[in-house]
């Protein structure tokens, strides 16, 4: 098992919404559904303005192998297909649907027939499910392993190490039957591997609930200390199996497949009922939100409609995030939609959003002694300032998972994650240039 401890940090959990059973939000007047809510090729719209769609109907089909189809999350009329700017900075087409208020389910929804592994993978692909932990990697690509004997472990990520977010907690508590049914479906198709649930010890209620299920299904429950970033893929694989994922490789190269618990439940739903991913449990919290809670939201719902459902803003928001405060992406305005992989929407007031004053690096080495990947962010920043790609290659900036520990602990409030991101881009360009030569 673990021969050395990976560095980590302790953050304030702020999981006050953990006890909030998700409320289902009624369909908003309109939704904006981007065709790219995953890593890989954007989906291709199959509807046009004026078409009538029902909940669960395909509106954009998969745009390639590494891609994922998109379904209507409400019933109504397609108003337009427009380019929108996502918080990640890319512009993608988005399908705008105006609600007819009926909530009609698409008539052709039925559980898929699965007779082989290929059928299973096709079903996973058709479900539109992507990594719900936040990365948004199409799940069928992850599960489509040619040589199933390569898989030794299936790791279920229940760590939820980010602050504020409790949507996975709710999945574990409210959908336990579905969760374990999902695990048995996966087990049925990829074989009897070691299934390990990795969970942080701050989720006592979940652990108690999962224990008997694990005992009866042969799934291992691994309770890990609540340190950030336990839920990082490489960190979780290491902490649950002792395996190290080599640089530039996938978990599979260490014999593991990692799935988020909400991903498993979404898969189970499609395989049992045929209803693809059209809604998402989202934790709405932060100092600017009047009534923080968990909400089941139709995908594509604008953030402002969601916040309105949560009693509106308590104070003027100055920063709104997709996801948690450590890795979340700040959005330009609250008309941005909820995506497939959105697990939280956090809105902060001016006090929480104002950036701290940056001062000079004092070489304290805190970034080095807290990096879970054992990198040296202060050196990376120096190498980036010199635009020294060769040095960045030696410093292995490509391993950085942007967890944010370095910036978090920096007493000088240096933007280390930002320099790491820029360094990764610089290094990539350099390596591509070197490859061409």
């Amino acid at each position: 098992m673990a021969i050395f401890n990976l560095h980590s940090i302790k953050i304030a959990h702020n999981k006050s919404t953990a006890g909030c059973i998700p409320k289902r939000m009624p369909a908003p007047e309109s939704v904006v559904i981007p065709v790219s809510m995953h890593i890989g090729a954007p989906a291709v719209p199959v509807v046009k303005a004026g078409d009538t769609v029902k909940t669960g109907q395909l509106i954009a089909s998969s745009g390639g192998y590494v891609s994922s189809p998109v379904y209507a999350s409400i019933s109504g009329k397609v108003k337009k297909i427009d380019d929108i700017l996502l918080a990640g900075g890319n512009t993608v087409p988005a399908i705008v649907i105006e609600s007819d208020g009926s909530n009609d389910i698409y008539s052709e929804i039925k559980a898929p027939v699965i007779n082989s592994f290929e059928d299973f993978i096709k079903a996973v692909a058709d479900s539109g499910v992507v990594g719900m932990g936040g990365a948004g990697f199409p799940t069928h690509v992850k599960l489509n392993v040619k040589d199933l004997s390569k898989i030794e472990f299936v790791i279920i990520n229940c760590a939820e190490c980010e602050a504020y977010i409790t949507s996975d907690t709710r999945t574990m508590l409210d959908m336990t039957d579905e969760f374990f049914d999902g695990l048995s479906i996966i087990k049925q198709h990829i074989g009897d591997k070691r299934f390990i649930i990795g969970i942080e010890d701050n989720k006592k209620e979940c652990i108690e609930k999962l224990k008997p299920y694990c005992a009866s299904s042969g799934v291992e429950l691994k309770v890990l200390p609540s340190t950030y970033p336990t839920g990082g893929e490489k960190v979780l694989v290491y902490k649950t199996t002792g395996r190290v994922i080599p640089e530039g490789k996938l978990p599979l190269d260490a014999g593991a497949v990692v799935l988020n618990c909400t991903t498993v439940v979404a898969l189970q739903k499609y395989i049992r009922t045929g209803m693809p991913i059209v809604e998402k449990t989202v934790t709405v919290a932060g100092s600017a939100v009047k009534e923080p809670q968990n909400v089941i939201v139709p995908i594509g719902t604008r953030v402002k409609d969601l916040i309105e459902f949560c009693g509106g803003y308590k104070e003027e928001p100055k920063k709104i995030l997709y996801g948690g405060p450590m890795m979340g992406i700040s959005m330009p305005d609250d008309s941005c939609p909820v995506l497939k992989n959105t697990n939280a929407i956090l809105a902060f007031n001016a006090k929480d959003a104002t950036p701290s004053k940056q001062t000079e690096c004092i070489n304290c080495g805190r970034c080095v002694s807290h990096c879970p990947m054992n990198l040296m962010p202060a050196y990376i920043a120096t190498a980036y300032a010199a635009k020294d790609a060769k040095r960045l290659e030696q410093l292995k900036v490509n391993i950085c998972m942007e967890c944010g520990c370095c910036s978090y602990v920096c007493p000088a409030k240096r933007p280390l994650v930002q320099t790491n991101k820029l360094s990764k881009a610089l290094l990539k360009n350099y390596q591509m240039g070197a490859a061409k030569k």
Partner: protein
Amino acid sequence: MSQLITQVSPHIFDKTTTQKIMLDVIIALCPAAVASVVLFGPRAALVIAVCVASCVLSEWLFEKICKRQNTISDLSAVVTGIMLAFNLPVDIQIWQAVFGSVAAIIVVKQLFGGIGKNFANPAITARIIMLISFPAAMSNWTLPNGVDIASSATPLSIMQGISEGELPSITNMLLGIRGGSIGETCAAALLLGGIYLIVRKVISWHTPVAFIGTVFIFTWILGGNPVYHVLSGGLLLGAIFMATDYATTPYTKSGKLIFGIGCGILTVLIRVWGSYPEGVSFSILMMNILTPYINKLTASKPFGGVKAK
């Protein structure tokens, strides 16, 4: 709705700031400062005040002239001032203390780019500059108030036969009733400060323990009295406060251990065979110079990293 702030993650931060770290160091230096005034009288307070004031002033002035961002609020110049004063005899001339402070801040720190960029510890280097510039004044040890010892020698010079006299008792060594610089004598106060810094996670134990431990073991092997060696001279002050300076010492734990051991060996070599009675400041300065190499040698191995072809 007004413009939202968009920013790269993370969006929450630890409350530690450079200023708070420096404040912790100042707090940790307080017991020794109080002890210095008790032991050496109000002139010790004057020396500390002069050094602090001239360090802060020279930092402010230099940054003003160079049109750099003013950094005196980070309190690092205050720390340098106190540490330099701690390394001076109580009877040092005021102008000499000012000279040392200006050298520390302007020559050693600001000319290399200011906080975090200097390769040598400002207070240590300034002390060495003063030792070379004013050898007589820098070795004129006035004894603490009301101590009845015939000579004004330090325990180190007595042990090495440079001066004659009786060694003070261990209790007196712990309390600081012995000849020496104003801040270095009270071992108990320095240890208290060191424990505070370790508890507050401002410093790690690696450097001080390696440094002090090496001196202890090495002097023991050489047949000296290890307890006296550890408690005398500037060892505790150096090991706890100077050898743990961020900018001029290694990042990693193993690097810190190497740094501490190196300092310890050099200190004993100078004490036993060198012509100066004390070697703490020289050893730290030498190890400061080696720090980039130690950092290179002890660079952390990236998780899952594959060696470049």
